[in-house]
């Protein structure tokens, strides 16, 4: 009882602390904006960065006027997530030509040694007469995640910032989450992953999946909280040569692609008729797709890269 009280107090204190921090942050950014607006025309030769104002218009701002504010890792609990954030991704199917750079970058940075990648580029064709297209598919980080619902031990969990993660130190390997996931994004470590000493000895935290992976447990795309924490984009987003992916925050209504261009999320989804996969299942994914209409690339171009039976390049086995 006492411990419960304690933890309650603690979480309340945490809340107050974070609230305070957030308040300060807002005040600071307000001051910053004022400063920016005051200064923006004064020095045109200065190096500028693109920023988006709250009403969605883009503007050039001197780089010196912008200071990067990022929560440090110690400030957040991997089970709770980043406070006051809600991550979303937009995948523009019109731009995907199956370059597979997202996949190789993900495989590399998550040290995937199995035979099933966490991000797959499906060759899709909805009906016989409709045109085929490439569909990069990763964990959809659903707001009503069926996997989390069925997990018997709270090993896979949903964070407040929208990310669905797996605690590989807790997973019992029942694979119910894999059966429950309609997007087939979960993979199992059927044998020892053999990721090499450096990875295997790394300190495990659920917000960097695959470092290290564990035999007998489930892995999947983690939306790269370890990159967000550094203020960077997930590996797949920055690796894509065609700007297929854009990643961002639903609360800020902004997503940014690998080239650093930012878009107003609501406008993008409206203009391009964005949709989510299997909406009818009620899973409420955090990943939006833009239909493959008015394509900038040919579908056929991707065929040479297509490997039906492989998604991870086999590394030399130690």
């Amino acid at each position, binding site marked *: 009882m006492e411990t419960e009280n304690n933890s309650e107090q603690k979480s309340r204190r945490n809340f107050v602390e974070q609230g305070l921090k957030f308040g300060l942050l807002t005040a600071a950014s307000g001051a910053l904006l004022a400063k920016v607006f005051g200064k923006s025309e004064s020095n045109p030769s200065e190096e500028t960065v693109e920023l988006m104002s709250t009403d969605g218009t883009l503007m050039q701002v001197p780089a010196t006027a912008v200071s990067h504010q990022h929560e440090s890792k110690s400030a957040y609990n991997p089970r709770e997530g980043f406070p006051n954030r809600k991550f979303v991704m937009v995948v523009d199917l019109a731009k995907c030509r199956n370059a597979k750079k997202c996949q190789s970058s993900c495989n590399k940075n998550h040290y995937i040694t199995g035979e099933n990648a966490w991000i797959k580029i499906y060759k899709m064709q909805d009906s016989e007469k409709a045109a085929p297209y490439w569909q990069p598919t990763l964990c959809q980080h659903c707001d009503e995640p069926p996997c989390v619902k069925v997990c*018997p031990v709270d090993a896979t969990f949903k964070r407040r910032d929208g990310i669905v993660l797996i605690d590989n130190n807790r997973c019992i390997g029942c694979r119910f989450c894999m059966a429950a996931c309609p997007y*087939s994004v979960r993979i199992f470590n059927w044998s020892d992953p053999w990721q090499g000493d450096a990875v295997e000895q790394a300190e495990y935290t659920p917000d960097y999946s695959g470092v290290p992976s564990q035999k007998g447990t489930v892995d999947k795309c983690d939306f790269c909280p370890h990159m967000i924490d550094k203020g960077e984009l997930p590996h797949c987003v920055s690796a894509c040569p065609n700007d297929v992916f854009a990643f961002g925050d639903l609360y800020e209504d902004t997503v940014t692609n690998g080239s650093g261009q930012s878009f107003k999320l609501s406008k993008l989804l409206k203009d391009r008729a964005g949709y989510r996969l299997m909406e009818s299942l009620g899973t409420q994914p955090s990943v939006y797709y833009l239909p493959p209409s008015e394509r900038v690339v040919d579908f056929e171009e991707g065929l040479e890269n297509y490997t039906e039976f492989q998604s991870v390049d086999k590394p030399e086995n130690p």
Partner: protein
Amino acid sequence: MNNSYTKLVSDLAPRKFSWKGNVWVVFLAIIVLVGLYSYIQQLRQGLVVTGMRDYALWGIYISNFVFFVAVSLVGSLITAILRLSGVHWSTPLTRIAEIIAVAAIIMAGITIIVDMGRPDRMLNLFLHGRLQSPIIWDVIVISTYLAISLLFLYYPLLPDFSILKKHFQENKYLNRWYGRLSLNWTGSKRQMNIYSRSIKILSVLIIPVAFAIHTVTAWLFETTYRPGWDSTNFGPYFVAGAFVAGSGAVVIVMYVLRKAYKLEDYITDHHFDLMGKILVMLCLLYLYFNINEYLMPTYKSTEEEAVHLRSLFTGEYAWLFWTAIIGGLVLPVIVLLFRWGRKPLPLFIVSLAVVLGAWWKRYVIVIPTLSHPFLPIQGVPQSWHRYQPTWMEWSITMATLALALLIITFLVRFLPIVPIQETAEERQWPDSIQTTRP
């Protein structure tokens, strides 16, 4: 009068195995040991030793688990449902049914552990259990059912243990053990009162729990979106199928024990005839649920369901599917409609077909669905497209089946397989109860 009572006791008291029995035990033990070797390999190397992969993420371990849960339901049917409805002919079969139920539910628990990727973390189910997960429901109802089934096996044994204690007066060891197990049973009025009331309570309790274990097991599949599992019919469909499998198992054990122990006086042809009729009824009921389960989705043939159903009806699982339906369900019904079909030997053969069909039916329920996910299967080795159990997986599965039979064999060796006291009572030897008094 007293003579025939003594004969009854010596007929029904557990006996040492003949050489056949010993060979049987050794045979089972070898299968279990081979399976144990495979399981140790699985612990070392991981589930990679099985044929399961990311798409076929469950395999024969899970279908075997469903089979065990199904068979265990028969305890509640033969003992509780028939008892509560005032049927007396089934008395000599109650112990057999309970022994099967206990063995099957124990093995269901063990099988599910075998399927776990991290059995070392089993305690997490209790440390971090979350009630919204159907697996936790299963843990709760299966352990409850195990507890009630053990009590339901043990309680009616109390008077029998006391009888056996007397019967084995010369054997110090058995005498002492049966004495202890009988918990000072004297057959006094007060004891009889508590005894019959407890059995009645257990009979009532076990029915909803039995329904719950198999309904929850059905929900393990039904809670997902997958075509073939996404059905509102699954609970009753599983329960009906479970009674079929369990009754078949009872007939098989009945037949073997009657032959081995020459129990023709106690397990009569009439018993087989009635069990045959029960089996027909249950098969027809299960067939009805099967029609519901397959006909309606076929009628609608939504894209996802159609792919799944095609693989069952005409595709790669057609052979298994139709064998299970026709060989394990339709033909048994036809044979059992005839009086000769319900004679012991034909019924025994039919029951073998029913139980075998029931095992493969669960395979057909669990595996094909997993090969038809919503998104296409791409980017994985070709061998992952199709599930093929490995020999290690088979050996472990065979070991669980052998271990179930070994538990049954062990219990048969030391328990009276036909309840002595109840049989005596039903044959109305008024002094029989008194003889149980010291």
